[in-house]
């Protein structure tokens, strides 16, 4: 897979992941209540899902793992927490990418919602177990908001892919 075609437009993939990382840590404007943070979509998971569906030969589990580690370091969470979530998301997408690709965008959004809810449950269980923090039920707004954002991520990244990659 080391042919020329397989590295074409890698910068598009990398910069979309970088943008997602920035959006993940972007501070809310001053004065906005902290609970608004629960309305922030899981940008990294959405972008990883898109690229694993579109280019499963190039973006996969290892990409998800390393991007997740970056997110862990930069957001100061337990090392491996984001990485595990993104690897799970990517493995679901990779296992069924041929089927998910065939679905309409709103159906894909439903799949995204289900995958991210599962992910949220796992990460809540881990955080509650390891750090003894109480969790807020508002956490489950994140998959919902992410699913609502999915169509735009999908259309935007697809336009970029068609323009720069294939």
């Amino acid at each position, binding site marked *: 897979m080391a042919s020329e075609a397989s590295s074409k437009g890698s910068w598009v993939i990398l910069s979309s992941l970088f943008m997602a990382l920035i959006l993940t*840590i972007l501070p809310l404007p001053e004065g906005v209540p902290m609970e608004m943070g629960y309305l922030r979509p899981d940008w990294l998971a959405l972008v990883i899902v898109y690229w694993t569906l579109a280019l499963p030969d190039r973006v996969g589990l290892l990409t998800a793992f390393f991007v997740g580690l970056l997110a862990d370091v930069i957001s100061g969470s337990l090392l491996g927490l984001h990485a595990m979530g993104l690897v*799970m998301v990517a493995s679901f997408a990779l296992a069924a990418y041929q089927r998910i690709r065939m679905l309409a965008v709103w159906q894909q959004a439903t799949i995204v919602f289900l995958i991210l809810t599962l992910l949220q449950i796992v990460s809540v269980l881990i955080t509650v177990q390891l750090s003894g923090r109480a969790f807020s039920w508002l956490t489950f707004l994140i998959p919902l908001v992410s699913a609502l954002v999915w169509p735009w991520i999908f259309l935007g990244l697809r336009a970029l892919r068609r323009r720069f990659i294939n």
Partner: protein
Amino acid sequence: MKPLFQKRVGIGVKASGLIFACVILVSVDASTLWLKSFKTLAGTALEPVLMISQWPNQAADSFSVFFTTRKTFRDEIERLNLQILTMRTSTQKMAALLQENNRLRQLLGSSERIQEAVLITEVIGVDPNPNHARITVDKGTSDNVAIGQAVIDDRGLVGKVVASTLGTSTILLITDQTQAVPVRSLRSGLQLIVEGGGGFADLVGRHVPGTADLRVGDTLVTSGLGQVFPNGYPVAVVSQFEQSQGNPFATIQAKPLAHLSARSHVLILFSTAVMPENYSNGAAINGQ
């Protein structure tokens, strides 16, 4: 030619391998400090990304400065000059009082008050997880910031340093769920511990009997017990004190005095007191 329906072998194996690796990482990171130096190193390398994430807010700030009139700035300068004047007047006798206080303490046989120096830092990031009350500031180990140091602003206690890279430090706010501060009431001298209620909002006092001498409006200051936070810094004002029948402890809520949600400046305290090694370690583990 690439086959249309490639058979992917080993996704499950690869995924479970990576997830297993993550589980190991998470549990090692949660229970030991082995990964601390790696996190410091990687965090230092990723500082530019943190800076980039500040651009939208900085742009908004400079936008509003651009559209502020000259007159507003003039008024502001005048107001600040007046403020400096009043502040100077009220601190004139500070040095003399401090000396007198220390002399009296010597007479009483207790140790001298420790002088604290401060390092002014700018808030450059807020933990994106709404369940964590943590901020990042722009001074790190290159300015001798160490884990466990207390952080204040112009009104009161903000939190403590729980992690630092070369140029940034992470501060756990007093309102974080995992943070507890030993305080005493300024009016009655009652000692209690307030814990973070989560978010930026409130502190909660636990295990205080309903008959305790505490009232709404009491100022709580750090008691210095536990040796993490130095003695005497204002923390919060009691906003609720209720006792219910059949409950041995009162319900206590307190509003932090420090302006925790403001994205401005905080001060890291440097004291001459030497903390035992295990205190800073404990702080690091609590900060996770």
